[in-house]
């Protein structure tokens, strides 16, 4: 069998291409009640009055819910009421819910609710947030419940501070001959997954709370509903069908709480809460923004000696996952380089912006934009080729990370090899700037990337295998199929282990938290590692059971029983054997008596040796391994109009081992596309009231098919020894260096530093105008 590595067709392909695939919002049951939201039109305001008298009279209205009597919620700091109470802190915050018989009645009633607001001064950036002259957004910060790994600073707008203190800063500066310092900033933006978020909830007579949700984290929903509302955890059942794109945005728990609250208000009846596109952009959590300062020092020959960074994250109005993002940004606060002396303060700031959820890359593309742009400034100052500078400083086995993890060839990929592959793919010797005609030049920019996944120290994954009477197998895993094809990879792993035709490996796409073994969350490029290991264990467990049964039936020692073509046989005499289908439901002797029974394979995996970070130095092991890569972008740049076209985007990623060529390429290409859109176009525009001016596809524009460049994916294979077949995480990595590579490319083409995102022609024009004056 050589199913591993093959571009096997995705198990969810047919139902998706035929339109038969069922997503959360497709469940339209007849007795369902519909929930519509009233959301804040301001970024910061006191709620003076909510008048529901008109709305109450609308036909079909069952309940109207406003703030008050609800618990504070939030994953790390409980600072957010699911429905605003007295005050709104961001544009789009939920102020009221209406439950009605039809969506139209609910919307009409929601539109009839009159809210009087008193606008308050707005914090529109993390730099303002840290300025004591600006208002305090959470005066009660000291009273909020929180987890022990988060460090808010009451009396300020700092929701978390993560410190990285590695080596000796003084020594680092002393040893540096060349120093550069750069500042960066960009606003929050969004994931804009094709499927807007949707949740259903029902509270049954036996106290079961049944939720369906478009989520990456159904098991987290189960825990949080139990924690927040005091529901017995075993009574919470969460269903997740296929998810139509998530990108981290569906790892946050939000609509599920609203659905529960709404259902409770109508005696537990089944309700549905669906986001409109505008609500999905405004109300539900977004992609974090950042203000950054990066200062680097190196020797004359280019050896990095020190990196000093301050990251001020635009966490938005509530902490939720933003504090975790600020921590992840500290863990990999530099690019993938060997730097002995590192100082970093990574601060999660409260602002009056929509609050942040994870976004593909989990703070890494954001940090890397700042860091890799600074590396290019350094290379310019040194007069050293930017790839050479990176190669010279590349992190290697034996080096240590900012959180002082000693790396080996299993825990870090081969960056020098990625760089040399990238050079070939980009025809690097040709030079970074090539004149095409009087108006146009072709420019090349690059960035190096790395990422580990900061996940909960005890996060686990389980897989169950059951069999069908024909001998085929069912794979049951808590991984959510968010479009990454992970469940197809799990099927490949099981197919390989059981030496079974891939078509005989059936995958359960839907997840039900009561009957599906838990997978912590489908995030952080960790599903293949964790569920993959669990799948291997489950297959081995099933196989052992099959062999044990076969050993009785075939009257031979277990060690002599071999496996192939969906049967087991004696290795000494393959003619003596028995097919799977006669074993997986127990074996029936010719006289009718039976032995054994259903084979159920069990597997689980928890990543070992993950630790919390030391609060003073950041030392600790945050994740299992670092995937590395080198990426490039080539643009055609108009030197008169400052417009550009991206012609090529290249990723060389050390994947460890590619398990499915096609889905791996799909992940890298999709991620590159997302990274280019984030780097080149996507952002929120805010006004003085903290309002997002572009919460629609009319004005919020991801990359459209046809605007994409040619994508080139290349893989290096340095195995992670404890991962399935050596495969490293790669779901996010195609994105990580794209904004930085694009920024480096355009800064070179335009001849001015471009340190903001998105990299629109107007930004270049502003820079050019500034440099002319």
């Amino acid at each position, binding site marked *: 069998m050589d199913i591993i590595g093959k571009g096997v067709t995705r198990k969810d392909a047919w139902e998706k291409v035929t339109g038969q695939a069922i997503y959360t919002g497709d469940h339209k049951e007849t007795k369902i009640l519909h929930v519509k939201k009233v959301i804040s039109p301001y970024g910061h305001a006191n709620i003076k009055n909510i008048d529901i008298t008109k709305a109450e009279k609308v036909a079909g209205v069952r309940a109207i819910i406003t703030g008050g009597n609800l618990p504070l919620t939030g994953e790390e700091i409980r600072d957010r009421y699911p429905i605003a109470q007295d005050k709104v802190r961001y544009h789009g915050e939920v102020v009221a819910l209406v439950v009605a018989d039809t*969506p*139209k009645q609910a919307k009409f009633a929601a539109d009839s609710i009159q809210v009087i607001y008193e606008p308050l001064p707005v914090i529109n950036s993390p730099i303002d947030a840290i300025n004591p002259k600006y208002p305090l957004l959470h005066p009660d910060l000291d009273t909020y419940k929180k987890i022990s790994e988060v460090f808010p600073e009451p009396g300020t707008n700092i929701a978390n501070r993560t410190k990285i203190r590695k080596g000796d800063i003084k020594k680092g500066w002393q040893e540096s001959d060349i120093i550069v310092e750069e500042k960066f900033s960009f606003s929050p933006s969004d994931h804009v997954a094709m499927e807007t978020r949707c949740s259903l909830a029902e509270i049954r007579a036996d106290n079961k709370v049944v939720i369906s949700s478009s989520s990456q984290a159904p098991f987290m929903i189960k825990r949080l509903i139990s924690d927040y509302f005091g529901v017995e955890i075993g009574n919470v059942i969460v269903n997740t069908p296929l998810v139509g794109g998530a990108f981290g945005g569906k790892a946050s728990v939000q609509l599920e709480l609203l659905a529960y609250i709404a259902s409770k208000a109508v005696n537990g009846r089944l309700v549905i809460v669906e986001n409109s596109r505008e609500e999905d952009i405004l109300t539900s959590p977004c992609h974090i923004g950042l203000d950054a300062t990066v200062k680097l020092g190196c020797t004359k020959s280019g050896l990095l000696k020190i990196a000093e960074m301050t990251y001020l994250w635009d966490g938005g109005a509530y902490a939720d996952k933003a504090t975790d993002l600020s921590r992840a940004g500290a863990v990999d606060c530099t690019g993938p380089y060997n730097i002995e002396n590192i100082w970093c303060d990574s601060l999660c700031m409260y602002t009056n912006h929509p609050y942040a959820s994870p976004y593909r890359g989990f703070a890494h593309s954001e940090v890397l934009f700042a860091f890799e742009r600074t590396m290019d400034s350094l290379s310019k100052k040194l007069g050293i080729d930017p790839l050479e500078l990176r190669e010279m400083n590349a992190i290697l086995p034996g080096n240590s990370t900012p959180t002082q993890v000693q790396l080996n060839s299993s825990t870090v990929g081969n960056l020098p090899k990625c760089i040399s592959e990238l050079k070939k793919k980009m025809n690097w010797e040709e030079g970074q700037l090539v004149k095409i005609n009087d108006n146009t030049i072709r420019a090349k920019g690059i960035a190096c990337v790395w990422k580990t996944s900061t996940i909960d120290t005890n996060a686990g994954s389980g897989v169950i295998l059951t069999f069908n009477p024909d001998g085929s197998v069912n794979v049951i895993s808590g991984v959510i199929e968010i479009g990454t094809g992970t469940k197809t990879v799990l099927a490949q792993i099981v197919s390989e282990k059981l030496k079974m035709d891939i078509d005989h490996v059936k995958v359960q796409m839907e997840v039900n938290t009561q009957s599906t073994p838990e997978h912590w969350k489908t995030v952080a490029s960790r599903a293949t590692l964790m569920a993959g290991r669990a799948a291997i264990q489950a297959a081995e467990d099933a196989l052992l059971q099959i062999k044990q049964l076969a050993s009785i039936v075939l009257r031979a020692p277990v060690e002599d029983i071999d496996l192939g073509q969906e049967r087991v046989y004696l290795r000494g005499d393959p003619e003596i054997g028995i097919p799977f289908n006669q074993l997986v439901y127990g074996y029936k002797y010719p006289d009718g008596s039976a032995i054994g029974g259903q084979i159920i394979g069990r597997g689980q995996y928890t990543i070992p040796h993950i630790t919390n970070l030391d609060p003073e130095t950041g030392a600790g092991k945050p994740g299992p391994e670092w995937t590395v890569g080198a990426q490039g972008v080539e643009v055609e740049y108009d030197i008169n109009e400052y417009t550009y076209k991206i012609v090529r985007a290249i990723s060389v990623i050390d994947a460890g081992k590619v398990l499915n060529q096609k889905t791996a390429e799909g992940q890298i290409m999709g991620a590159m596309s997302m990274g280019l859109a984030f780097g080149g176009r996507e952002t929120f525009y805010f006004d003085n009231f903290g309002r997002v001016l572009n919460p629609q596809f009319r004005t919020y524009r991801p990359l459209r098919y046809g605007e994409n460049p040619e994508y080139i994916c290349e893989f290096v294979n340095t195995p992670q020894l404890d991962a399935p077949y050596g495969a490293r995480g790669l779901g996010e990595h195609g994105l990580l260096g794209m904004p930085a590579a694009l920024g480096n490319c355009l800064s070179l083409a335009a001849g001015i530093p471009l340190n903001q995102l998105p990299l*629109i022609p107007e930004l270049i024009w502003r820079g050019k105008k500034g440099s002319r004056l």
Partner: protein
Amino acid sequence: MLSYNFEYYKPKSIKEAIEQYQTSKSQDKKPLYYGGGTEILTLGRLNYIYTDAIIDLKGIPECKEFGFQNNELVIGSTLSLSVFEENKVFPLLTNTSKEVADYSSRNSITIGGNICGQIFYREAVLPFLLSDSTVIIAGPSGVKKFLINEIFNKELRLDEGEFLVQIGTEKEYLKAPYLSVKKRKQWDTGYPLLTVAALKKDGIIRFAFSGVCPYPFRSIQMEKILNDKKLSYKDRVLASFEYLPSPILNDIEGSDGYRLFVLENTLSNILSYLGGEELE
């Protein structure tokens, strides 16, 4: 989804449409004439547009007209923009309208809707402003014909109860040299940062603009200067800016200063493409 209900009418004649409008009005309703619905539906769901009586013009034969009458190309107001993408009888119109929205939307957006709608770019009007077209407008006081340049001022000046039936363009304009340039904030998707349409007639280049100001316009004064062969292209462009209407748009698509920068480049490029000899 619209949260409000509305009556729907699809009259078969101009007269019936106007009468329906009057009737709805007399019942204290807010009737709206309806073409492709892309604005009424998408802005209606956000409560930016309200109507309780929709009068769909797509059943009126005159509004679906497309062809030559005498020396004129006649275009019915309810033809969708994608029609002109297929039929290139008026290439400037083809080029300008195919940049509006996206393909699926252009299957619905009508030419009349684009010209008379709330979204202020109204790019489909530019070719007609340049070709001194005529418009047929129907209303309670009858069916009348106007020169578009007389009745279009920022928007088509329709009185209560009136609607656009047809646009007529003389043949001689259809094949005139032209160029239509749409510049966006970034890449190929989105509203115009600005759109400039140009048409050369009798040696004179005419210019019409969208996205420069919060309304489309054609400026005779700017055209005079832009055609002044005593000046270099660059000088013509800069001198023409004196006559730009106000305000220059300053919004999330781009600042006013940047728009002028792009406009300068765009006009210079159009001049070198259509202008022939730079200086006499």
